[in-house]
């Protein structure tokens, strides 16, 4: 029986003790392989959602009466979300950011899976991008829940992938010391790396709780 610290160390430095889910990753090990594949899968899912949103947005611009495929009811409604000014914060439709950003994320992931070794500053770029993404989607979440009062399913897919992309990129950058980690921070990083799943689960649960609470009246009608 290894101590907790040992186990944390194992996840940080050497190959993960858990059986690797994907065998084909070649020279990558443990946490690096995890982040590589996460970038590929997360990037693709996010890309698909962003492209769909962009196509729906164009359809909506062509024909204002168009009802997007994800406008299911007053709460689950892309249409009401997409036609707000929050949907064009920077003066152009938000999904354009997603289409470009997730394409980059996917490409970086594929490069890593193919065995690329990237310079530190490249990782900083990825950190900057995912950090921007995670801040942005939380702002959008707030707008969606408390200002627009509707949820857009494709947008929620983007939320759901951006959080792990940010979290595991950060974790990787911290454990691989692409980011400067002070000695005092090291145990915290090790703890975070050991309990990475707890953090992400907690993060998702808080958001799920907020969504549940905000639209409680609606959800409760689905039960009865």
């Amino acid at each position, binding site marked *: 029986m290894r101590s907790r610290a040992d186990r944390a160390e194992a996840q940080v430095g050497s190959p993960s*003790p858990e059986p690797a889910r994907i065998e084909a990753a070649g020279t990558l090990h443990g946490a690096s392989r995890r982040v590589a594949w996460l970038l590929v899968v997360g990037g693709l899912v996010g890309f698909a959602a962003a492209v769909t949103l962009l196509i729906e947005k164009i359809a909506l611009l062509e024909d204002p*009466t168009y009802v997007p495929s994800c406008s299911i009811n007053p*709460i689950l409604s892309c*249409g*009401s979300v997409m036609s707000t000014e929050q949907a064009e914060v920077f003066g152009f439709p938000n999904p354009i950011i997603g289409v470009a950003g997730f394409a980059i994320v996917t490409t970086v992931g594929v490069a890593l899976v193919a065995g690329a070794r990237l310079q530190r500053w490249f990782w900083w770029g990825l950190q900057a991008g995912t950090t921007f993404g995670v801040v942005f989607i939380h702002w959008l979440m707030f707008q969606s829940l408390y*200002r627009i009062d*509707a949820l857009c399913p494709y947008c929620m897919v983007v939320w759901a992938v951006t959080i792990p992309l940010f979290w595991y990129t950060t974790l990787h950058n911290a454990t691989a010391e692409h980011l400067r980690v002070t000695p005092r921070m090291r145990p915290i990083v090790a703890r975070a790396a050991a309990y990475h799943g707890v953090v*992400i689960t907690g993060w998702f649960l808080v958001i799920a709780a907020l969504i549940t609470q905000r639209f409680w*009246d609606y959800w409760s009608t689905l039960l009865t």
Partner: protein
Amino acid sequence: MSKNVKISLVMVLAAAAALLVAANVAGDDSPTASTGDERSDRLVRPDSQRLSEASDGKVTFVEFLDFECEACGAAYPAIEELRDQYGDEITFVVRHFPLHGNSEEAAKAAEAAAEQGKFEEMYDLLFQNQAQWSHSEESKKDVFFDYAEQLGLDMDEFRTTYDDPATLEKIRRDKEDGQAVGVTGTPTFFLNGDKVEVSSFAELLAQIDDALAS
């Protein structure tokens, strides 16, 4: 199984349990969707606003709306088309279901205009100019008073009704009625007491035609 996975699973299970408990508690005291007479009484009250009144009283179309909600604004042209097409064959009833920052204020403006027989005119103005006043943190009372002036209303009377607590009470009662009959968002439509669940305008027209023919 690592501690990481174990703790995560426990968290998910705890959240699911909390949700179940909350759902049961809420289930007990949520307004029950009453049936029969009580329900139809709550769908349309004698003092509810009407855009038109059918002479034969056969078909009643009720819309629970929020003047600030975009989906309601998007439905507005369709409803206008419906009213063009059916006019006085159908009773169109408007109920308030305010959900946004200025929704109650807008509803108050509509009610205050109704006192002077200009409900429909205010309803049109609110929807046609929705983009100009919606989604704002601050009160748009001034904008609504401008509309009242445009409509040539007696402004003293308008102000009195607008600020009358009874007006707000009526709007909130509309919302309570809506919740009692199963409205959860806006716009929600009822055709002769049944919630309208259609995927297209054509389908809605077909349902109305059926109701008229029966």
